[in-house]
């Protein structure tokens, strides 16, 4: 064949083919140079990012304990389900949501949209899908069948747990997930989208102390998101413990008395607060009914939420600070101090209560009986309405002058009425301390003497929170110092180091003379020894003042099926160290019962009085 014609070989086409081959490889080489030599470092970073994942490590939230170290809020171990959107191909998201939703008891749509939101925000960061801790079996299933659940991770988490939940919920509140809106601002503070935050109560108030700092761990993983090994670890910072001024023993004593009263149908709701008048420490704060704040931790069901919202006793409101009530006769403290301070009255001021009705301008103002001749101490001790009508508003029939609404406003405000005490709890109500100017503004009507009379005995416009009332009596009991009430005693770090100690916070000295304050303390002691709040077999020199206020219809039943009785009863008390008028009391207490029966009062049997005696005697004389 050597001699055969070789015109079938076209050299030009061979050259063209060879050139094409060289061009192909030149092109590929140039592109590789660009990727590997020029862009190598950039892609190396990307590969690291792919392979190495930095995951947050949850910090344990600080515990909350009472003044003696009894744990009120702790953490239990549990499991959370999260999804890293980057690891979940979009095409599989709908399927995954369908599969995952029943395991975390959610709607597939919600699961999918939560993933979408995180995808838009930071697809490398996990988003928490489980609203409540998942069972161990589910956690195991998810981690073992990873191929069925792309992008899904199971993380250990700590779950808040509240001891004596219903008793302490009004104080502690609860923690809950941060909302979308909150997250916009919180992320700068190191919060993650899946984070919990104190929602209300002390959990919210002391969020900054309780919250720890995230640690992180870097893991190497494969494309199926399986963890190969841990590369680096930075431990989280446990949150600080918060020590409260609360004494669990006193808290429980108050609770058991109040609960007994509700069970015996004497009243439907109740508040009991105790504080140390010498420094403003709250020793106990009970609001009944409370709620089970563990519901919120486990993920509250719509039924439970409806139950709480539909309850006309408003269990979510801490009634010690969050609602206002007419103070009734307890407000005679303010009327009395106003009259004394303005020189309208002194301890010897006599009013003759010859009738149980005082008629002014055709209106009739009643007392609960015709007391006869009363001086200041007796007027206070027997809680004569006409005595305090006269001190507050005077008597136009005889031309006698009273302290007047301006003075009552002045001293009432000085004692803290009409403004928040500033206690370290969210949701405090300011109450109402009315004045003629206030009435003109709110009702566009001039003040009448009837308004002064009603106000003088704690009815009408004036409205107080139980804490405000307790605080006012505490000021009298300690000789005129307004301490800001507080629940925080100390903040203790994870290693037991004291981070912060709450010092007594003096807001002001009230503008009332020691002489008048001493007279008030004497009068309050008389209430118990000779008067309205007689205590049989009293073992402690308790002083105080009763109050009864009518507030509405006494018909029907409340959500708990108890009779609405239409009256509030108060007993606000303080306990001097000895049976004298010295300002030595280290405990003051207010007991407030809501919807009490009127008949209880007509027999002069205010349930709050007996409860106060039993509680204080048990607390002071009983074994700790």
């Amino acid at each position, binding site marked *: *064949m050597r001699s*055969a014609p070789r015109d079938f070989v076209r050299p030009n*086409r061979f050259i063209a*083919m060879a050139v*094409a081959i060289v061009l192909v*490889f030149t092109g*590929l080489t140039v*592109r590789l140079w660009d990727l590997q030599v020029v862009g190598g470092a950039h892609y190396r970073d990307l*590969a690291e990012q792919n392979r190495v994942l930095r995951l947050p490590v949850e910090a344990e939230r600080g515990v909350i304990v009472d003044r003696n170290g009894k744990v009120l809020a702790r953490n239990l171990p549990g499991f959370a389900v999260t999804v890293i959107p980057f690891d979940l191909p*979009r095409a599989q998201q709908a399927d995954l949501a369908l599969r995952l939703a029943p395991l975390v008891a959610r709607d597939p749509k919600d699961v999918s949209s939560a993933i979408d939101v995180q995808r838009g925000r930071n697809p490398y960061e996990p988003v928490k899908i489980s609203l409540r801790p998942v069972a161990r079996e589910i956690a195991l299933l998810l981690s073992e069948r990873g191929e069925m659940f792309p992008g899904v991770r199971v993380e250990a988490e700590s779950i808040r747990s509240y001891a004596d939940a219903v008793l302490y919920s009004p104080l502690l509140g609860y923690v809950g997930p941060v909302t979308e809106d909150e997250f916009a601002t919180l992320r700068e503070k190191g919060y993650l989208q899946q984070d919990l935050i104190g929602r209300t109560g002390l959990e919210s108030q002391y969020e900054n102390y309780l919250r720890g700092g995230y640690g992180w761990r870097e893991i190497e993983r494969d494309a199926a998101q399986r963890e190969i090994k841990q590369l680096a670890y930075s431990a989280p910072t446990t949150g600080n413990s918060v020590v409260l001024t609360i004494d669990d023993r006193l808290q429980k004593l108050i609770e058991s008395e109040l609960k007994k009263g509700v069970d015996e149908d004497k009243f439907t709701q109740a508040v009991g607060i105790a504080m140390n008048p010498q420094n403003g420490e709250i020793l106990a704060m009970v609001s009944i009914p409370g709620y089970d704040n563990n519901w919120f931790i486990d993920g509250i069901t719509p039924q439970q939420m409806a139950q709480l919202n539909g309850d006309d006793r408003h269990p979510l409101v801490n009634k010690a600070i969050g609602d206002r009530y007419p103070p009734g006769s307890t407000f005679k403290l303010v009327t009395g101090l106003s009259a004394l301070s303005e020189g309208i009255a002194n301890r010897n001021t006599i009013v003759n209560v010859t009738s149980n009705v005082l008629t002014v301008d055709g209106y009739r103002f009643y007392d609960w009986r015709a007391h006869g001749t009363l001086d200041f101490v007796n007027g206070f001790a027997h809680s004569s309405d006409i005595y305090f009508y006269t001190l507050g508003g005077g008597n136009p029939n005889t031309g006698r002058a009273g302290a007047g609404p301006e003075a009552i406003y002045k001293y009432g405000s000085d004692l803290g009425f009409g403004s928040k005490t500033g206690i370290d709890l969210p949701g405090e109500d300011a109450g109402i301390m009315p004045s003629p100017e206030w009435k003109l503004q709110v009702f566009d009507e001039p003040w009448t003497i009837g308004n002064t009379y009603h106000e003088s005995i704690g009815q009408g416009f004036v409205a107080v929170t139980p804490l405000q009332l307790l605080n006012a009596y505490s000021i009298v009991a300690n000789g005129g110092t307004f301490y800001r009430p507080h629940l925080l005693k100390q903040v203790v770090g994870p290693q037991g180091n004291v981070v912060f100690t709450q010092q007594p916070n003096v807001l002001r000295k009230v503008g009332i003379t020691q002489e008048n304050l001493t007279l008030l303390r004497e009068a309050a002691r008389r209430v118990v020894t000779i008067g309205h709040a007689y205590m049989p077999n009293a073992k402690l020199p308790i002083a105080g003042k009763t109050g009864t206020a009518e507030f509405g219809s006494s018909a029907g039943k409340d959500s708990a099926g108890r009779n609405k009785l239409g009256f509030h009863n108060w007993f606000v008390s303080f306990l001097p160290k000895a049976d004298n008028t010295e300002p030595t009391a280290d405990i003051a207490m207010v007991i407030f019962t809501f919807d009490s029966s009127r008949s209880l009062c007509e027999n002069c049997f205010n349930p709050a009085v007996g409860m106060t005696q039993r509680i204080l005697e048990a607390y002071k004389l009983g074994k700790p």
Partner: protein
Amino acid sequence: MSVKALEMRRSASPLHDRPHTRRLDQVDPYLLIATLLLIGYGLVMTYAVTVESRTLTGDPMQFVIRGAIWAVIGIAVMVTVAMFDYAWLGTLAPLVYLFMLGLLGVVLAIGTSSLGAQRSVNFGGLSFQFSEVAKVLMIVVLAKFFGDRTDKMGSPLTILGGLVFLGPAVYLVYRQPDLGTSLVFVAIFFGMAFMAGARLWQLVGLVALAGAALPAIWNVLKPYQQARLTAFIDPYADPQGAGWNIIQSLIAVGSGGPTGKGLTAGTQSPLGYLPIAESDFVFAGLAEDLGFVGAVILFALYVVLLMAALRVAFRARDPFGMLLGAGVAAMLVFQILVNVGMAISLMPVTGIPLPFISHGGSSLVSICFALGVLQSVAMRRPGPEIS
């Protein structure tokens, strides 16, 4: 009959070959050495990509062992084929063609599905990708068809005739569906027609026709195929979906840098970020482990192989041999371009194996068969007269 006349007659007949001893000198050494080095390189990469993989199950060495067995089989096939005069293939071309269509038909009829496509046939515990063999057989058929018509290459009828042979094969492969391999068939056709001397305007006209038909072709494509093409244009449009492969592959290649992370030290491929790391995306793993240097060495081996193949074609004793060489070169360069181009985002994602490097017995043995044929062409080229 003189010795010379006898010699002429015997060499003219495919059944009367020249003595083996003389022809061994004619073996193309560049082609042979490049082939063996590339087979070795492929085994090394199979080892590197699979031994550390945490996504493949079972004994990590199984791929290496299987690859080595296939290499031995491939070399045996290459040697055996080289022994025979390639003229036999020309003689048997009609049967070859029917055999090829049969293979492709079998795949469609009883093929097993993998990743949504029906591409392989399981037999005796092994899986065969018949389309790999079919590509080589197509080269034989087209070489015979065009080789017999070198004097009529100017006629459009010749080109049309080639298309008639090509069409059914492309259709059957496309139906598997394997768009990539069917494009390899088309590339082979164009390469061979070009080398056979087809008029350029005819070839350009065909390309223009195909271009005009693009919208129609687009509509015929399956959604995943369309997605791959759009992802090629903008991989970051759906980084989790269609763009995933491309992005991960780019990261693998780029992160290899100039000298690579070291054999088996790559993270993208072992950790499973590269889909089908041992086959379709093997180049990304190679570039990650061995870097720019490793890739250029590979390219150099390819260039040597391809140039040697062209030289064999250039020196072939007849148009049939020349076109066999041209067809094999066209097939290899197209596959390399598409596979490597895919890994570095110059080409859309298609499942075309990288010659020698991708793990897969059918591909390797088919290529060895083709190179055996080329050695046969080389051995039987008109050499210096033996006295």
